[in-house]
């Protein structure tokens, strides 16, 4: 097996995909897209963030939603992992905790697409005990 084979496969894939690909260039106007950041530090991964991220990506790809999905690090909300941060264009980011694949779909249906808040929002003034001292 060599690199050449993989390159050939890529070219074949390109020909096959050209018809079904979403040609909108997401990178051209990132400001107009909803950004979803899945916390994927050790705490997030151990709590199941990967399944959450996979389900979000699958939905965004299937329905061609105007959403960018990325990974984030630990924000100190280890107790509430998996967490996702959703930033709608022009609005402050909102962090949801204890998210699973079902909860992620609810967040997409209500908050991402319609701006309607759902349960599970982590307060922005949350402080760890160390910060309070």
């Amino acid at each position: 097996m060599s690199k050449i084979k993989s390159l050939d496969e890529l070219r074949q894939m390109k020909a096959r995909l050209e018809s079904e690909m979403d040609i909108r260039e997401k990178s051209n106007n990132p400001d107009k897209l909803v950004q979803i950041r899945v916390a994927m530090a050790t705490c997030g991964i151990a709590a199941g963030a990967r399944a959450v991220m996979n389900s979000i990506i699958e939905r965004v790809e299937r329905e061609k939603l105007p959403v960018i999905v990325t990974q984030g690090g630990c924000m100190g909300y280890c107790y509430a992992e998996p967490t996702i941060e959703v930033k709608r264009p022009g609005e402050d980011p909102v962090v949801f905790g204890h998210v699973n694949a079902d909860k992620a779909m609810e967040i997409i249906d209500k908050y991402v697409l319609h701006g309607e808040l759902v349960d599970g929002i982590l307060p922005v003034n949350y402080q760890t005990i160390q910060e309070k001292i």
Partner: protein
Amino acid sequence: MNDLSMHILDIVQNSISAGATLVTLTVDESPAEDLLTIAVGDNGRGMTPEQVSRLADPFFTSRTTRRVGMGIPLLMDSARQSGGDVRIESEPGKGTEVTAVFGYSNIDRPPLGDVANALMLLVSSNPDQDFLFTYRYDGEEFLFNTADVRDVFGKDALRNLTIIRNLEKMIKDNMREIRNC
């Protein structure tokens, strides 16, 4: 951590946080030698020998959002419980290489898990970084390089989730093919 691909997700994040522009991931399964090796290398900012020596300590972390850092200690645990170990080489300004070795047939070795999915989650989240993935199974080899993908599909290819999904499937198929021959 349920499987080794989750460790990969975790450890590669360290490389990204260290400002790496190139991450090399090597997964080498060798039933013949009874070894499984996972190596993550990067060209990030690297660590001093003092920092490296403290990596095994879960209460050491470079971050400020919390006071514990469990990624490397958990990886060490997984490796050691299967008769292996973790080796870390790092140089400030050059980069870091983390190599974890596992006893292949050891009953306490976690399963490898879905490496293709872990890799593509990392790639799609970091579309401007370069990833070089090498998979070996008893000497057979498959290479995947995100630079090739950009050459064929254009520079923004890795932001396209349809391409990402198909690449993941391609990598999965190739890994399966190598494993079966």
